[in-house]
């Protein structure tokens, strides 16, 4: 099993979710994060004070999949999240050794 973490632009969430669902991936966990990267933030001015907002809102999708599905999932994410503009984000893959479904206590690939 692998964990795929994708950092994407917020408004792409629906598309990515659907692309993954099309592959039969039924579960994922999403969180709001702030990204720092090449894409530059905007400047906010409050009366005299200027603040450069370096950290831009991004969405992090975490999805654990069986080894067999990794390739497909990566492709689906990249395709659906891409705008071609700077700041589109990254995808990282890392190993997962065990998974458990709390409700049923099933473990391993059955659990995801």
């Amino acid at each position, binding site marked *: 099993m692998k964990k795929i973490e994708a950092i994407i632009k917020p408004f792409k969430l629906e598309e990515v979710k659907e692309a993954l669902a099309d592959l039969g991936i039924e579960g994922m966990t999403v969180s709001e994060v702030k990204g720092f990267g090449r894409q530059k933030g905007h400047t906010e*001015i409050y*009366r005299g004070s200027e603040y450069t907002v370096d950290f831009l809102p991004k969405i992090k999708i975490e999805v654990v999949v069986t080894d067999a599905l990794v390739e497909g999932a990566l492709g689906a994410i990249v395709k659906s999240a891409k705008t071609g503009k700077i700041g589109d984000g990254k995808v990282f893959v890392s190993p997962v050794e065990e998974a458990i479904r709390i409700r049923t206590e099933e473990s391993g690939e059955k659990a995801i």
Partner: protein
Amino acid sequence: MKKYTIPSRLAAVALAAGCVLTGGSAFSQETVTTVTETIAVVETVAPAEPTVEQRIADLEAYVNNGARTPDVASKVSGPGPGHNAWQMASTALVLFMTLPGLALFYGGLVRSKNVLSVLAMTLGIAGLVTILWFLCGYSLTFSGGSAFLGDLAQACFNGMKPGNVGAGYHWISDYIWAMFQLTFAIITPALIFGATAERMKFSAVLLFTAIWMFVVYFPLAHMVWAANGFMCGPLNPDAGIKAIDFAGGTVVHMSSGWSALVLCIILGPRLGFGKQPMAPHSMVLCMIGTGMLFVGWFGFNAGSALGADAIASNAFTTTFLCAATAGFVWAMVEWITRGKPSVLGFCSGIVAGLVVITPAAGFVTPSSAMIMAVAAGIVPFFAVVYLKKMIGYDDALDTFGVHGVGGTMGAILTGVFASAEANSVVEGLKDGLLMNQILASVLTIVLSVVATAIIAYIVKFTIGLRASEEVESTGLDTAEHGEEGYLLD
């Protein structure tokens, strides 16, 4: 009767006649009559029954917000409903400016970890000042005394009665006059702590306020608005400085603004000031507060006419025009100089417009108000955006930039634009008025600056002014009040 034995007969008369006034209406009417009227009471000569003609005259006086027929027992001796209704509404509106108006305007501008400390500050000051006002503040401000401070004759509202009128003006209840003035006494110190936000201890806020009220506010309000006050041009023929201040340019905005500057310098900047981001945590709250300040200010300014009369209508109109226009001007200046018109720009401009028109509201024409609006949208903008950066003090929410600079400008422009066309009381005072306004401003600044410096050091060396570094960095809310502003999970 105690209150007439202290000081001299003259002072007693002045006191009885008046503590008269704040507003312009008072200024446009014969004070003499009021005096006579009250003396009658003092001497307890049973007054004559009024004639039909006198009874009609009294009723007309009600409509016109004028004085009753002297020397007769008026059949309408209590509060006049229309004027008193407006005075009650105005008092409610001015309280609304502080709770929750100012609390939100300021609260939205701090970081979320300090929002409750701002709310607690306004709530604490409202309570503390109410208690002081009842115990002696009202009396020290409006009861007899010298040209510089009142006496204690009306401490604990001693001798005041629900049906009495005349302390404020002809047709409003003395009680409501005291409450109306209380709302001013509450908002003034609350303004100061915009400058010191996010780092001053709550206990220090309360102690500073308690002393400051006695040293700065009560004396200043007495000098400007009591009938025997040193700077009360319209009512005191012996006034040292014959200045005018319709609704508190000197008393409220200059005193708080200049005190704020001194206090925030002595306090020092916030940790990380200039390095860490300290953006407002909620421009939405700030804007809600601005709306409430705008609406409530009609009570502040038009209420200062002390009756629902022509002067009140004038003050209402100049206030509306100046505030809305100044908000627009500020945002346009921002658009030109910084590229974007911001919500904070609109809000700042509205407040600046309100501050600038305050001393002038019942004394200038709508056209003059529009000119003052343009100045109000530009001058404080530059003070806040450039001057502060140049000098480098940390006036967190720009109390000095808006109230200090705006209030001073307003006091002086009142000298320029005050006109008999708007208010007949200006007629007798127009000569040398500009110089008198400048003198009054200088006196206000000197009093505020010197007193604040002394009080600040007293507090600093007794209980301390600042929260500890740890408290400041985790936020005042949990540390000082044991609560969090928001729990949105």
